[in-house]
């Protein structure tokens, strides 16, 4: 059904006000999914095209960024399906990949020093890129894009408990990467990279 000029004006103004300001956020999320700038551009363009066409279905007052992230992920999955380019790991594989990340770090004074003395942004950003899916999406949504566990669960179409476990394992994998980075940068002692089991009282 065609909109009247006045309705079209309202439609466009609300889209401009509520959806367009999140373009950079959607781009960051798309880039974390595709790990390729050209593919991310395509996914973001597809996201905003679909968002504009479907804007009448957006529930006013709800979280537009969450809504756009959901469209973005679906757009990414569609492009990946089209390209028949399977990059996700099945859950069984994920378990084995994550096995090394199950334990907390014990002595990590090298990483402590890194966090306070070095600009870790480039190292962390590339470590996030190297994270396997599905850990990467959970870390990016919650830690980089400040989404709640509930929002991430909705965007990723998974239970909240799965968000929690993927997020925690993703964080542990990142911390292990930082230990290696600290060692290479000369911050970590042999002891600090040797044992990986935390001792609780």
């Amino acid at each position, binding site marked *: 059904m065609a909109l009247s000029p006045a309705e079209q004006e309202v439609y466009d103004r609300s889209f*401009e006000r509520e959806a367009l300001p999140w*373009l950079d956020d959607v781009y960051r999320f798309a880039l974390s999914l595709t790990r390729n700038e050209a593919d991310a551009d395509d996914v973001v363009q597809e996201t*905003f095209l679909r968002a504009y066409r479907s804007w009448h279905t957006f529930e006013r007052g709800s979280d537009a960024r969450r809504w756009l992230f959901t469209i973005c992920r679906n757009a990414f999955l569609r492009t990946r399906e089209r390209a028949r380019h399977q990059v996700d790991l099945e859950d069984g594989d994920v378990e084995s990949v994550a096995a090394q990340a199950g334990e907390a770090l014990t002595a990590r004074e090298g990483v402590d020093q890194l*966090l306070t003395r070095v600009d870790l942004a480039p190292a962390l950003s590339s470590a*996030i890129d190297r994270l396997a899916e599905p850990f990467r999406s959970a870390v990016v949504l*919650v830690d*980089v894009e400040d989404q709640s566990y509930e929002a991430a669960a909705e965007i990723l179409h998974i239970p909240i408990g799965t968000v929690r476990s993927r997020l925690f394992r993703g*964080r542990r994998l990142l911390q292990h990467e930082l230990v290696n980075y600290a060692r290479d940068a000369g911050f970590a002692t042999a002891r600090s990279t040797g044992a990986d089991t935390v001792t*609780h009282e």
Partner: protein
Amino acid sequence: MSDQPPAAPGPAPLKGGIDCRAALDQLWEYLDGELSPEKMESVRTHLALCARCYPEHDFEKAFLEAVGNCRKDLCASHRLKTKIMDTLHRLGFSPTRPTSV
């Protein structure tokens, strides 16, 4: 100096109603603000009283802040923004300004 031998290790004392393992197990959810108000309070109290766990809190907090800030400067290119606005325009969208993003 006391001649008494050190006390044998006993059960971990509860601080805030929880022991260190429980506090550390919930630390990320605490930092994410994802615990119930009662659990938030238990962990907060434990951390305030426990000299062993507070450094863990500081480390994880610094780690999460570093992850959260590592991509804040990453933006869509001007070329992409222009391309999206052109596409939306073809669909009938008319922005208040030539470039709304």
